């Protein structure tokens, strides 16, 4: 398919859509699927057929529409009506009401902050296209950025555009994407690789899953543009085996893109070729670390190795390799299409663009959101998230997963950007945002993350392997009431040591949840240790000495 044909296809598809009177987008992503949205789709299809509306009403299996807690969600276009908690039985009523006023009892208001405060780049297509349709993606401008890059830009210009955009790695570290690309582009060698890290490992994060399930072509396009920019012809998507739907949609998208000639050999009639293959992760958080991920793609144990040399010079099979995460790649088509300056104008000076967050925990509106950088935590939690349910009191918000920290009340008005989050002892991370109220015990939360880190430690370096185990033991002592103040001192000593001496990021950041909870909630630790009492009432304190037990 040449760029011209691509354009024609988009036009034709738009024309065809115009012939329809209505289009129903049913969310088929994981959370809504759990609420049996597949049955809803079937019910709509049957109802359309029964009413003989096949020519005028289309039912599409669409991607995430954000409000996961209220699924299954159904969007009706062109009316723009959103329905929540739709059951198969509702299909008839919704169809019969098309053209007229919406079915009131099912309407999910979209003029609320949850939707109004968002700004969609990565999620611009989510819920607006059939996730399995290449045509739908193309009709909304898909692969136009790749066409522009291949026909109107040199690889160097593409790198410059990304550099201008100020895009930073969305996987957690916040490394400048443009700098990474130019390093790989400059690295000597004929053979280079592009890898998409889709091993979304943070417990409490599902941004990448949602993007892959809702808009898989977006990621493929981003990867192809990156490959062109750095001079690679082969790429891998390393995706979690626990995401079967994402795997299926990616595999399907790769096949369709190759058939359409927007991926594979001689893309869009140019001399540029780019082959993409999937590699399945197998349940190892540490494989989110670049060198471990490479080791895993090579079919080995996912143990990290010391850096330098960095993958940009010495990566997959020893070749220069570019690794970015799903959300980073998903930003690229929009940057190339609209220009780096456009992207840089969104967000803050040092943290450009938007960030997708998975909002979960003790908050009214749980789901997926995309907001401009620089928005405050309060706006996210109270305006978009609708606040804390059941009249409870906010205690902390956790960002960055097991490598991040818990941010207390006093920083709610802080802007969300890489630097501010780091300043208060957390990190941007990949986008998990877990809200906690007074029913959460911060020591228990720290113990939860340490349990995660010790089971996910690869076991190669001593501080991480044994240190996380001991820290978990000490935190368990605190939560069962048997700890002393010496144990607390030792815990702090281990935090410092493991942070400074571990081989890779997993170990170096494993103490963060403990450090941040100690920083803001030391009184909770002391209540457990000295008074043998859990203020939140979570810990059972079963080994507390009897004379002081409450």
């Amino acid at each position, binding site marked *: 398919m040449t760029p011209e044909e691509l354009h024609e296809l988009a036009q034709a598809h738009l024309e065809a859509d115009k012939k329809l009177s209505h289009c129903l987008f049913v969310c088929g992503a*994981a*959370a809504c*699927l*759990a*609420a049996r949205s597949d049955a809803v789709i079937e019910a709509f299809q049957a109802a359309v057929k029964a009413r003989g509306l096949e020519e005028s009403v289309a039912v599409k299996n669409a991607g995430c529409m954000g*409000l*996961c*807690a209220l*699924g299954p969600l159904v969007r009706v276009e062109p009316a723009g009506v959103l329905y929540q908690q739709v059951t198969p039985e509702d299909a008839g009523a919704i169809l019969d009401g098309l053209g007229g006023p919406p079915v009131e009892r099912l309407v999910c208001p979209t003029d609320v902050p949850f939707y109004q405060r968002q700004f969609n780049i990565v999620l611009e297509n989510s819920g607006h296209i059939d996730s399995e349709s290449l045509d739908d993606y193309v009709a909304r401008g898909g692969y136009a950025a790749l066409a522009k890059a291949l026909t109107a830009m040199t690889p160097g210009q593409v790198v410059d555009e990304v550099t201008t955009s100020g895009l930073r790695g969305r996987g957690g570290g916040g490394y400048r994407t443009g700098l990474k690309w130019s390093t790989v582009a400059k690295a000597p060698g004929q053979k280079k690789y592009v890898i998409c890290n889709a091993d*979304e*490992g*943070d*417990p*409490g*994060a*599902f941004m990448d*899953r949602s993007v892959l399930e809702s808009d898989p072509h977006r990621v493929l396009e981003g990867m192809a543009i990156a490959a062109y920019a750095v001079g690679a012809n082969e790429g891998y998507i390393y995706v*979690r*085996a*626990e*995401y*079967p739907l994402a795997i299926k949609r990616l595999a399907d998208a790769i096949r369709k893109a190759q058939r359409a000639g927007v991926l594979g050999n001689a893309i869009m009639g140019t001399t540029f070729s780019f082959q993409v293959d999937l*590699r*399945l*992760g*197998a*349940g*190892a*958080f540490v494989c989110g670390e670049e060198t471990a991920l490479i080791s*895993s*793609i*090579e*079919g*080995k*144990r*996912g*143990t990290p190795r010391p850096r330098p040399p960095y993958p940009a010079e010495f990566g997959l099979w020893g070749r220069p390799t570019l690794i970015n995460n799903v959300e980073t790649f998903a930003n690229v088509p929009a940057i190339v299409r609209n220009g780096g300056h456009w992207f840089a104008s969104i967000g803050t000076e040092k943290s450009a663009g938007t960030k997708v967050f*998975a*909002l*979960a*925990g*003790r908050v009214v509106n*749980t*789901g*997926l959101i995309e907001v401009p950088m620089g928005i405050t935590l309060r706006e996210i939690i109270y305006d978009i998230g609708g606040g804390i349910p059941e009249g409870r009191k906010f205690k902390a918000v*956790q960002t960055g*997963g097991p490598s991040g920290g818990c941010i207390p009340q006093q920083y709610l008005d802080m802007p969300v950007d890489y630097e501010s989050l780091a300043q208060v002892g957390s990190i941007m991370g990949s986008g*998990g945002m*877990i809200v*906690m109220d007074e029913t*959460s015990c911060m020591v228990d*939360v720290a113990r*939860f*993350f340490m349990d*995660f880190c010790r089971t*996910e430690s*690869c076991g190669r370096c001593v501080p991480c392997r044994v240190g996380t185990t001991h820290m978990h033991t000490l935190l368990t002592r605190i939560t069962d009431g048997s700890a002393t103040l010496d144990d607390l001192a030792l815990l702090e000593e281990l935090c410092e040591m493991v942070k400074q001496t571990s081989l890779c990021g997993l170990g170096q950041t494993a103490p963060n949840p403990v450090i941040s909870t100690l920083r803001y909630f030391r009184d909770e630790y002391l209540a457990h240790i000295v008074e043998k009492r859990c203020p939140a009432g979570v810990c059972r304190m079963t080994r507390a000495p009897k004379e002081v037990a409450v």
Partner: protein
Amino acid sequence: MTTAVAAVSPPTDDKRWKMVETTMRKHGHQPNALIETLHKVQELFGFLDDDALRYVARMLRVPLSKVYGVATFYHYFTLKPQGEHTCVVCMGTACYIKGAATILEAIEDAFGIAPGQTTPDGKLSLLTARCLGSCGIAPALTIDGRMNAKGDPSAVVESLRKVIAT
């Protein structure tokens, strides 16, 4: 090298080994296809036994201890046969905050098994996941691959009983 590969025959004449062989062939029997091949074996047979590991090792020319090292490094792989039905409880942060531990306890109590174990009658295997990526509907769990949203302990135990009875 090809002769050595040709000399190896599958552990049994089960037709599924042909599909395993197809996966290996797709990757040119390269040692780096190890993880992909193990995924295939587990998908088809439900677990990885010594015979399977030995076969894959010979076919891909990977040392036995390396195959074993890989199979045990990744928690997605299991060396033990699973029960007829599988329940995976998500222990991700959002689910934990919303009481996943209580659900897990209820299942453990009701069926007398700990995570990683299978009931003596081979009906139910209980597993935990670090995150199912369904935090918006926490606490989440899957029963035979089907996602179950906003679980509550007694309801989950009830639906598990139903699944096992069928």
